[in-house]
Structures are given as structure tokens and as C-alpha cells.
């Protein structure tokens, strides 16, 4: 039985989960750091409890404190969302030991998939294709380097060195020629030790021109494990996805079926429970290889929800409560695209940006979904991830979905903080995106020297005119307000300036 869920997360995914709890008739508890006191997700829970401490490790990563809050507030389940503690097997184990239901797979499944070398070996045993390569078991530096050298000739060049505990590109090195190998191996190990306290690396053949395609999995305790089709997430900048879609434009029924079966086999190999994602590299040849499994809900889950009609978060809650998943036979319908709106300067190497969301006006109309944890008047701070929102569109066809995405991005107004809106909009006009011929190196290939916006000269003139006219017409009355409202919750409240006149 699950009746009261603690959501151990913040921002848009906390909003997503808290609303699902509300619709499912479950009570919910939000936990928040003091700098999140006015954030939207805090308002969506039945109860909200402030975390003591300042840094992330004292708050959202503080297992002990979160467990105590869960117990004292009478929660019988914890949903970790993604990031933070979602893939910490020790936390999942501690939650279970406290008699609280973990909304996710067993600690053992998290461990097996969390160590990439173990995952490769497990998958190979389960008959799931992995990227040709070799694990290096030696821990001693000298022995490891010798083993890497020997393995490299078997794997072949170009190759990829990857840290077993790695993630987000850390401890990863592409090696083009044998003479680069030793330096690359040493630096990859150094980085991996620094970042994860674990220098183990493995070698993989470097597959260029491949697509990143992943399969959504659901498994319940009745023994049913199904896949919900694929998502393509090849369009990445700095190893982070920005443009995701379902289905994959170049997918065939045969590959989908084979990949889906492989993903189900991967999940069953670790007795998986709940929602998870098996990531593959899909080579132009149609061959695909296991990359890793994410043992949690994924940022891009909405595109799968829109084409399958399955509410993945509701199913997570059902499965955690011991119920069978509710979805029956699945049919993919239409096409969904998600873009990630970041507070970042796409024209300056995607550097994170901060500032007030002086105007935050999402697009409207049918087929548009916005998953966000911010609203107009909020402040973007350097404290957390700079993702502001996920804009997701659905349409009957991929062409119509791209049309709808273009209009949605054109209509999306965010002022006061630099965002990647225009970068996302230009992506929609890239020929490779239009044809679906995207691969993981596309952005680097298209903009080797960095991206900068193509602005019609007349538009720059027009913007100057607007700014000058607004200044002359005295619209800068809003100036003081934009500053005052910063950090304030609720819909924009420009009256604070006035109110503050009366101390």
C-alpha cells in the first residue's frame, strides 16, 4: 500500500510527480532547501517541509535528513525523481530498511547497472549486444595501463576509454591513434579517481555517425515486463540531450522489435521493477549496442507518454504499491518532440546564465505540453541545474510536430535571462533534423566553431526601435519592479514596489 509519498526532488520533475500523486488521490510531502522556499513545487504538495542546511549535500543529497522527514511525516513511499539520490543504491537500501517503499528498482538492480563495467558483463551474459570492447579489471595503475595497451589492439582504433563509474562525459576519452593511448588512459583514470574515487576504465570501439536511441521499460511485480517503444536523443550538446523525439524517424519495425526485446531482456536480467530506460547506440548499419541503463524516470519521458498514451509516473506509483501496471496492448500514435529550455548562452559555448524571469510566457494551443517548475517572476540562480522547462509537442505526423514546435518556440517569450530558445528554434530548420538524419555528433559537425543566431538585420533594427521607444515612452517604470520582484513567488507582483513604500 502506498498512501503518502515523499518526493525527494525539486523543480519540474517534483511538480510532475506531485501532480500525479494529487490525481491518484495520494498525499504528498515536498522537501525543499531554504533557497527553494518560494519555488512552485513546494506549493503542489499536501505538506512541505524545509530541509536544514545550505549546500546540496546538506539538503537534497542528505539521506539521513530525508529519511527522518519521511518517517516523521508518516510517508510510506519515496519517489526520487531523476538526478540527486535517484540512482544511489545505498539510499534505496536505507529507504527499504526503514520500511518505506522505494519508487524504483531494487538496490541490487541499481548497483548492477550503476557500475558500467558490471553492466556490460551482465548484459553480455543476458545476450544483449554491447559495444565491442574490453573491461580492464586491474586496479594497479601499471598493470591497468599494460592491460589497456594489449586490449587496444584487439578493440581497434578509433576507440573510447570510459570510466566504469563515469557519467556526463567525465573520465571519458576518445583515442584516434595508438600513440595517444597512454596519455589518454592516464588522464581518464586521473579524472575518474578525482570525480568518482574509482579509476577503473574500459575500452570500447568508437562508433561514429551513430544515433542515441533508448527504450522505455516498465516492469511490475506480477512478472510483466514491457517496453514502450523508443526515443531518439541523438541531438546533444556537451554530452547533454537537448532535442528528443518519439518515435525515431528512421526506425523500422524490425529494429524496434529487436531493440525492445533486448531492452526487456536487459531489465529481466536484473529483476527490474518500475520504470527504466535502456540506452543503445544505433549504427547506420542497423546494428545496435547496449550503452547503459538508467534505473529511474528519465527527463525525456513525456515524448513516450504522448505517443503511447501511458502515464509513466502514475504507473510508477501503481507498481510501487504492488499493483499491476494498468496499460494494455500499446500502439504508437503520431509523433512527439521535446526540447529542453536551458538558461544558457548558446552563442557562448552553452554557458549557464542567471537572472530574473521578468517575462515567462509559454506558447498555447492544442498539442503543446510544458513541464516546468518555474513561473514569471522567479529568479534563475546558480544553485541548481539551469533547465527551465521541457517544451513537448505532439502532432499526427513528424512533419506536423516540427511545424508545431517551430510555432511554439516562436511564441515562447522569456525575457530577463538568456536562454537557448533561438538555438532550439534554429535546430528545427536544420536539414538533418528535418530528414531525421541526426546523430550524436550533429551539433559539433554543424557548428564546429560554436553557434550564433542568424538574425535578419531588420529585426535588430526593430528591436532597437522597440527598446528606444519603450524608453522614451516611459515603460521603464517596470524597471524597479523587475528588480524588486526577483525571488518572489506567485504571479508577477509588481506592486511590491508600491507596497514597500509603507514600511
Amino acid at each position, binding site marked *: 500500500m502506498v498512501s503518502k509519498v515523499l518526493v525527494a526532488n525539486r523543480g519540474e520533475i517534483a511538480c510532475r510527480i506531485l501532480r500525479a500523486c494529487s490525481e491518484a488521490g495520494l498525499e504528498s510531502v515536498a522537501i525543499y532547501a531554504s533557497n527553494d522556499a518560494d519555488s512552485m513545487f513546494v506549493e503542489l504538495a499536501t505538506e512541505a517541509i524545509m530541509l536544514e542546511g545550505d549546500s546540496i549535500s546538506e539538503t537534497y543529497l542528505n539521506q539521513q535528513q530525508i529519511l527522518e522527514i519521511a518517517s516523521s511525516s508518516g510517508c510510506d513511499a519515496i519517489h526520487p525523481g531523476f538526478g540527486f539520490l535517484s540512482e544511489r543504491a545505498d539510499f534505496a537500501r536505507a529507504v527499504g530498511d526503514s520500511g518505506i517503499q522505494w519508487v524504483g528498482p531494487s538496490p541490487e538492480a541499481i548497483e548492477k547497472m550503476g557500475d558500467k563495467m558490471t553492466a556490460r558483463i551482465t548484459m553480455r551474459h543476458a545476450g544483449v549486444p554491447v559495444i565491442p570492447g574490453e573491461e580492464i579489471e586491474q586496479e594497479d595503475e601499471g598493470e591497468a595501463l599494460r592491460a589497456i595497451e594489449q586490449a587496444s589492439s584487439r578493440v581497434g582504433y578509433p576507440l573510447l576509454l570510459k570510466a566504469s563509474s563515469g557519467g556526463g562525459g567525465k573520465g571519458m576519452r576518445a583515442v584516434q591513434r595508438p600513440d595517444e593511448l597512454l596519455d589518454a588512459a592516464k588522464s581518464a583514470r586521473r579524472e575518474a579517481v578525482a570525480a568518482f574515487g574509482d579509476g577503473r576504465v574500459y575500452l570500447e570501439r568508437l562508433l561514429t555517425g551513430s544515433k542515441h536511441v533508448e527504450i522505455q521499460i516498465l516492469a511490475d511485480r506480477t512478472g510483466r515486463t514491457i517496453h514502450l517503444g523508443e526515443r531518439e536523443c541523438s541531438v546533444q550538446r556537451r554530452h547533454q540531450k537537448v532535442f528528443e523525439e518519439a518515435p525515431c524517424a528512421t526506425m523500422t519495425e524490425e529494429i524496434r522489435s529487436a531493440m525492445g526485446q533486448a531492452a526487456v531482456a536487459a531489465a529481466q536480467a536484473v529483476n527490474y521493477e518500475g520504470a527504466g530506460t535502456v540506452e543503445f547506440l544505433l549504427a547506420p548499419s542497423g546494428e545496435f549496442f547496449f550503452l547503459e541503463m538508467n534505473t529511474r524516470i528519465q527527463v525525456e519521458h513525456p515524448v513516450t507518454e504522448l505517443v503511447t498514451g501511458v502515464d509513466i509516473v502514475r504507473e510508477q506509483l501503481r507498481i510501487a504499491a504492488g499493483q499491476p501496471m494498468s496499460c494494455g496492448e500499446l500502439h504508437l500514435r503520431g509523433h512527439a518532440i521535446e526540447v529542453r529550455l536551458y538558461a544558457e548562452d548558446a552563442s557562448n559555448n552553452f554557458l549557464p546564465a542567471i537572472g530574473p524571469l521578468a517575462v515567462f510566457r509559454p506558447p498555447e494551443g492544442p498539442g503543446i505540453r510544458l513541464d516546468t517548475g518555474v513561473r514569471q517572476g522567479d529568479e534563475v540562480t546558480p544553485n541548481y541545474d539551469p533547465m527551465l522547462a521541457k517544451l513537448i509537442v505532439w502532432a499526427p505526423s513528424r512533419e506536423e510536430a516540427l511545424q508545431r514546435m517551430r510555432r511554439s518556440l516562436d511564441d515562447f*517569450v522569456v525575457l530577463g535571462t538568456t536562454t537557448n530558445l533561438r538555438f532550439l528554434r534554429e535546430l528545427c530548420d536544420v536539414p538533418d533534423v528535418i530528414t531525421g538524419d541526426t546523430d550524436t555528433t550533429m551539433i559539433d559537425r554543424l557548428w564546429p566553431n560554436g553557434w550564433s543566431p542568424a538574425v535578419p538585420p531588420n529585426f535588430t533594427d526593430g*528591436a*532597437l526601435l*522597440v527598446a528606444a521607444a519603450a524608453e522614451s515612452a516611459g*515603460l521603464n517604470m517596470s524597471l524597479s519592479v523587475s528588480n524588486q520582484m526577483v525571488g518572489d513567488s506567485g504571479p508577477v507582483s509588481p506592486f511590491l514596489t508600491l507596497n514597500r513604500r509603507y514600511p
Partner: protein
Amino acid sequence: MQHQFKGHDGLIEVLLEKQGDHWLFNGHTARVKDSRTLSLDLSDGTTGQATVVKVKDAWWVHFQGHTFCLERIEPGTSDGGDEGGLTAPMPGKVLEVLVQTGDVVVAGQALMILEAMKMEHRIVAATDGTISAVHFAAGDQVQQGSALLELVE
């Protein structure tokens, strides 16, 4: 009216004309719809609504999927015919009030003197008119953006 903005390669000057409730620049026309919206009519026939907001010194403008952040250079003195001049350009203190309610003033006439950021700022009339109200007296503290006086053309 003249405004200066920071460009990638130095200052950009915008020489603004006013005709009725239309603002003109380089063959383009804008009209204020409300405090966040202007109708824009470009010389190539493109028309639409622009959304605008000022944050600190920068005007943020959105027009048809493009976003601009235009940092404005404040003129050294405020007698550049700036109609925003009847509001306090920054937090400060009223040093002197040079007019009273009912006074007839001419464009360019100094109305009030503010001290802010260790500098004196003259608030001048943008147009000829009559002072209909004076909101602060010498010695008063004012906030950035506070309305200082009211001038009826």
C-alpha cells in the same frame, strides 16, 4: 530623441522620431500597446507584436521568435529630452524642487535636482506644459522609478 545602446562592436545610436503615437526609426514604426507590448511595423512589411521589459539597464525585446538584450547607455546628463526623466532614474535623495503645482514650464526646463550615486541629476521637462503635481520635497528619499512630478502638456 536619441538613445545609445551597447553593440558587439561599440555604441549603436538610435535617433528616434515621434509622429502622433507612432515612433519611427530607419523606416520602421512602433506603437505602444501596453506597458509590455509594442506593435512593430518593419520597412520590409513585417508586422507583429513585440514584448519588452527592462531589467536593470537592459531592454529585453522579443519579436517573432528572436530575443534581444539591449543594454542602454544613460546619457551623461539627463537633458537629452528624455521623457522618462520625470521618474527617478535611480534611488537617491531630492536636493531641490525648482517648480510647484500650477507652474507653466517649457521643454528642457529643469524641474528638480536629485542626488544619486554621488552625482547630481537634473530632471528636465520633456515638453512644454503645466506642472499638475509634485510628489516629493527637498530631503525626501526616492526609489528608482518613483514618479517625481506630473506634467500636463
